[in-house]
């Protein structure tokens, strides 16, 4: 077959490959630009001279970040929220998905609950009632305000439920005959066989928690409680400079521009680290979400 491919065919093959490589690389160029700025001299940056390669290479911004308490405090809040939120999402997704994966014969209320959750997923009442609810619970300035409102990840529940439903019934029945109750069944049969799906939904919630900024912005009054994305949003987007004229020595070495670029990049690092897993499991997750009956 391949041997019969014509010359033009092969040239077109190459053209397509080169074109797509160019597309792929240009997708990343903005990120490269940010990295280059973070590593450049401040004068070159304010003169708009930095493209894809650092001008006046230095690590001043990064060494400043290493010593920047506020940055690490926000980083810590984010880590805390990811751990707390991720764990909560995991437990609640499993506990909710399992009964919903049962047949209506085994769990007659199943359909009612299913509709309730789906309705809850698509219902979005708007920011004002949402804020009043959470502040009504006294959760303002409390880390739980960042994890409790989204503690039941309904989309993840649906993914996991679909996965549970596709587990062979024979496994289920064998355990039943051994006298296992639903808790034991979930623990010793369903969880061990669902590891890929569990990895997927866990990654979903970790990335979601790491990336969200808005709840931190309005639910945390004290800036010391801001998660990293909120902290960065305030510096970079709302343009509240981290450096002031008083810090003349620092200003001689770096500018808010180089420093902000470095902060953006450091905030990306955790995502870049888990990216290989993300790529593998998210794709699977998308397919799981699209399971049809």
């Amino acid at each position, binding site marked *: 077959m391949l041997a019969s491919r014509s010359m033009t065919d092969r040239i077109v093959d190459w053209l397509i490959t080169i074109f797509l490589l160019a597309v792929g690389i240009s997708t990343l160029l903005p990120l490269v630009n940010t990295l280059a700025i973070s590593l450049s001299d401040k004068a070159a940056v304010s003169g708009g001279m930095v493209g894809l390669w650092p001008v006046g290479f230095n690590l001043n911004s990064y060494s400043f970040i290493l010593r920047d308490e506020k940055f690490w405090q926000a980083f810590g809040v984010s880590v805390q929220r990811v751990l707390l939120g991720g764990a909560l999402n995991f437990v609640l997704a499993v506990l909710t998905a399992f009964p919903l994966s049962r047949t209506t014969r*085994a769990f007659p209320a199943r359909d009612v609950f299913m509709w309730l959750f789906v309705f809850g997923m698509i219902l979005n*009442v708007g920011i004002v009632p949402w804020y*009043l609810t959470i502040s009504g619970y006294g959760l303002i300035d409390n880390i739980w305000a960042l994890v409790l409102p989204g*503690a039941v990840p309904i989309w993840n529940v649906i993914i996991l439920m679909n996965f549970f439903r596709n587990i062979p019934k024979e496994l289920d029945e064998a355990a039943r005959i051994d006298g296992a109750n639903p808790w034991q069944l979930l623990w010793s049969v369903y969880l061990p066989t669902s590891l890929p799906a569990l990895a997927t939904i866990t990654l979903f919630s970790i990335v979601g928690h790491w990336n969200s900024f808005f709840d931190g912005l309005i639910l945390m009054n004290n800036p010391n409680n801001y998660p990293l994305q909120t902290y960065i949003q305030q510096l970079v987007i709302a343009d509240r400079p981290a450096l002031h004229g008083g810090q003349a020595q620092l200003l001689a070495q770096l500018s808010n521009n180089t420093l902000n670029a470095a902060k953006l990049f450091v905030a990306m690092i955790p995502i870049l680290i888990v990216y290989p897993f*993300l790529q593998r499991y998210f794709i699977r997750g998308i397919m799981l979400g*699209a399971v049809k009956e």
Partner: protein
Amino acid sequence: MFKDTDRLAYYAMILPGLVLLFAFTFVPLFYSVIAFQRFNPALGIQGSPWVGLDNILYMFSLRDARQVFFNTVFIATMKMIFVLLTAVAFALLLNEVRFLRVRRSIQTMVYLPHFLSWVILAGILRTILARDGMVNDFLALFGIGPIYFLGQPNIFPWVIIFSDVWKEFGFEAIVYLAALTAIDPTLYEVAELDGANRFQKMRFISIPGIAPVIVLVGCLSIGNVLNAGFDQIFNLYSPIVYSTGDIIDTYVYRIGLIQGQYSLGTAVGLFKTVVALLLIGVSYWAAGKYANYRIF
């Protein structure tokens, strides 16, 4: 076989999730009644006076409300169309790449922006779209610009649309790529024997092969035409582009929480909720009918 104790266990498992669902999704629904009040936080829901449909009617009379509604639908629809077209084109082309390694590397590159937050991406966009930023430097090579991307009302929506394409096209292409690999390879072989060229194979085999997925994505998108992307716009807009860039969600945030017009903000939010519920209903119905899809 189905014991009562089993059912008890199921109820116990689902209970925590139900409690949280109630506390954070259905309780806010109750708070939405302030849309029909002149809500005063110090008086609470019990104490605030009821005004019937006044807020809703006032909303319809507001030029701003009509404008943000239009902006929302326009931006969301354009995003869907352009992301879909780009993703399909990308998937079809990528399907032609024969070197598996290269294929994987390209995928790795284009999926990445999807996983980064809009805070990070907006920070990057503000830098590269500035007057002395990378994009204007590039355009200057062709004698174009400089363009004030984030400060021109006629350009701003397109910045939003195409930056969303940048973030999402690769990721959306995943479903099309999956559909393409599911196409029976013998179809292509037969076509080649019949002398079909690359374009004809694409036209008569690949595209029909992924058509159901395109229909499905299109149907599900109907439910999203009121979601133009709060995080993205919130981090890129400013007063000068309100006329074309302000969307329902940013508007509700500003008037409802920041300016303290709680009832009006809730009314606009509630209106969006109701319309969105209808649209999602339609989209699931359409997805079920035309693409044989059910979420559960």
